[in-house]
């Protein structure tokens, strides 16, 4: 397997910011739309770096960084129509951004004030899933539902390179294939599953796994927002037209640690990171926009200002997130009254009220 993704890598924007063409995939975007993508990438990275800082300051319990993967997430997220539905892992902050999930809602999960964070129906995006691979089957089931409702929307399902080893993910491929479900499997191959390199999960490029399941697989430069958008557009269109699933392997790199609890210096060399910095998804778009005259200095400066203002608001918002009421843990365990929960809740409340003013 080649470190640069090999000749099969679909690219529309080189790391140097040069616009190139591909025989099968293209996008035709207005300057406004291109600037919009740039703004997305910059703001998502800022959310990510602010959250990392907030974790260091003790405001979050943990944060899973998406730095380096913004183009894969924003490009695929922006390909979605409002009626499409996304199933994320725990790292899809860029997808959440495109689905209108407020960054503070993401932070509330990592701060430990909720195990959810947003209304999946309101955003057409499921809650984050931490157990590796579980959401892939949910995505297929949701797509099967769309099929049965004659809804010509599609589902996109995110997972990592490590996740491809899980039984559930392989079962999801089987179900999607045999039912021709309108689902796009979007694998962000960031080369690492915590400390384990890709070789621990596969002997062939991941996109080629699709062959064995009977649907198409493609490998796209995950740091090229234009190529990701083009490839995802095509896969979603195929799904909507009844052609069933596609596996997209977005070839990218986890530039940060696995999470804020991780220390990647124990298992990977700094030189890799340096090489991938040259393929940064934001830098190449900036170069392209500037060189082609599609954006000027004022635009870039305005995005910076916006990022700065958003960061301040995010910090304040995070610090201001209240802890939930203790008894709220008994809320919604079931959708209908449940005797045991009611009994335990009553005992819990009595016990806690015994402390008020009393002291133990």
């Amino acid at each position, binding site marked *: 397997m080649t470190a640069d993704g090999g000749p099969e890598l679909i690219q529309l924007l080189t790391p140097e910011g040069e616009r190139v063409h591909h025989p099968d995939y293209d996008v035709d975007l207005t300057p406004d739309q291109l600037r919009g993508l740039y703004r997305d990438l910059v703001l998502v990275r800022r959310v990510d770096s602010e959250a990392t800082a907030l974790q260091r300051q003790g405001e979050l*319990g*943990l944060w899973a960084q998406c730095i380096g993967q913004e183009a894969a997430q924003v490009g695929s997220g922006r390909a979605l129509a409002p009626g499409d539905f996304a199933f994320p892992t*725990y790292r899809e902050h860029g997808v959440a951004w495109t689905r209108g999930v407020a960054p503070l809602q993401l932070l509330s*999960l*990592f*701060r*430990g*004030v*909720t*195990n959810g964070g947003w209304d999946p129906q309101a955003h057409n995006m499921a809650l984050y899933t*931490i*157990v*590796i*691979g579980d959401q892939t089957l949910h995505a297929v089931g949701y797509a099967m539902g769309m099929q049965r409702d004659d809804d010509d929307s599609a589902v996109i399902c995110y997972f990592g390179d*490590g*996740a491809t*080893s*899980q*039984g*559930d993910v392989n079962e999801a491929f089987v179900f999607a294939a045999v039912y021709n479900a309108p689902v796009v499997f979007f694998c962000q191959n960031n080369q690492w*599953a*915590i*400390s*384990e390199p890709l070789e*621990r*999960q596969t002997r062939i490029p991941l996109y080629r796994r699709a062959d064995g399941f009977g649907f198409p697989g493609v490998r796209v430069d995950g740091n090229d927002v234009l190529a990701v958008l083009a490839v995802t557009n095509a896969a979603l269109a195929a799904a909507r037209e009844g052609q069933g699933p596609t596996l997209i392997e977005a070839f990218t790199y986890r530039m940060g640690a696995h999470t804020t*609890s*991780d220390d990647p210096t*124990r*298992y990977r060399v700094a030189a890799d990171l340096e090489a991938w910095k040259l393929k940064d998804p934001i830098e190449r778009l900036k170069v392209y926009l500037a060189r082609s005259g599609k954006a000027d200095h004022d635009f870039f400066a305005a995005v910076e200002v916006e990022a700065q203002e958003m960061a301040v608001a995010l910090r304040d918002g995070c610090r201001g997130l209240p*802890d*939930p009421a*203790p008894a*709220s*843990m*008994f809320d919604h*365990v079931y959708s209908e009254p*449940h005797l*045991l*929960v009611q009994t*335990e809740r009553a005992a*819990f409340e009595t*016990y*806690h009220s015994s402390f008020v003013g009393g002291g*133990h």
Partner: protein
Amino acid sequence: MAVTTMAKAINAGLRKALEDDPKVLLMGEDIGKLGGVFRVTDGLQKDFGEARVIDSPLAESGIVGTAVGLAMRGFRPVVEIQFDGFVFPAFDQIVTQVAKHNARSSGRTPMPITIRIPYGGGIGAVEHHSESPEAYFAHTAGLRVISPSNPVDAFAMVRQAIACNDPVVFFEPKRRYWDKADVDLTADITSATSPFEARIVRPGGSVTVACYGPMVRTCLEAATVAAADGTELEVIDLRSLSPLDVPTVAASVRRTGRLVVVHEAPVFLGMGAELAARITEECFYSLEAPVLRVGGYHTPYPPSRLEEDYLPDLDRVLDAVDRALAF
């Protein structure tokens, strides 16, 4: 003797097991170069090689399922499940295969597999990283389930688990990984207490408190506070959940007449329920109060900002002790 954390004690135990028996091998996610997310396997791949300390693909069912085949081939696999909440993809293999194989083969192919699982809360983690699923496993015939509460026991018990010819689910109380104690790292396991026996870790005559894993320290702290009020708690570290050492608890309850069982796991159908039923049967005429349970609620493990309200603490233990005494 060396002052050692529980994580390091388990590491030392694994190292000894690898040294003593060439058939012992370790498998799990991120246990090699990284040394595990809690560093419990730190340095072992470097010293024993990639064939014996195996970084596995990201698939728990795969880890346990291949361990079954390795066991059939005469190996003694020690597998690591990265966190409590991630054992469930392997649940099928554990319950339908690992647990039953000895019986099905009439004892011809035992399953000397050790399944290490860091468990329990109190570390401010995100979802699925703080759970206490031990009752599911103790409920399954064919599995032994044990949990150390301190570095000394951890060093012995992990080796005893590996030496045992039955499958052992070895629950490691993750929030106690950094607790320290003097551990004799030359101690032999032949002289150690059986890991399937409970131990009285603090004698006392007023109330018996049975607990295990992370709650032992909590209960010992409660005992110190209670003693200042003249209440003497007899704290029993169960150590093993299957088999459950009922005789040791029963003997204690015959002296004290009162039992409080404490665990992080939900009380409903938990280890406390089993112990309460058995003690009621065996010690009915000695009991001065009903057996009381302190534990988790019938709710999903809450987000971390609420975990202090969910987890049993010193106050909740003492509250139960007070209620037992008030009967």
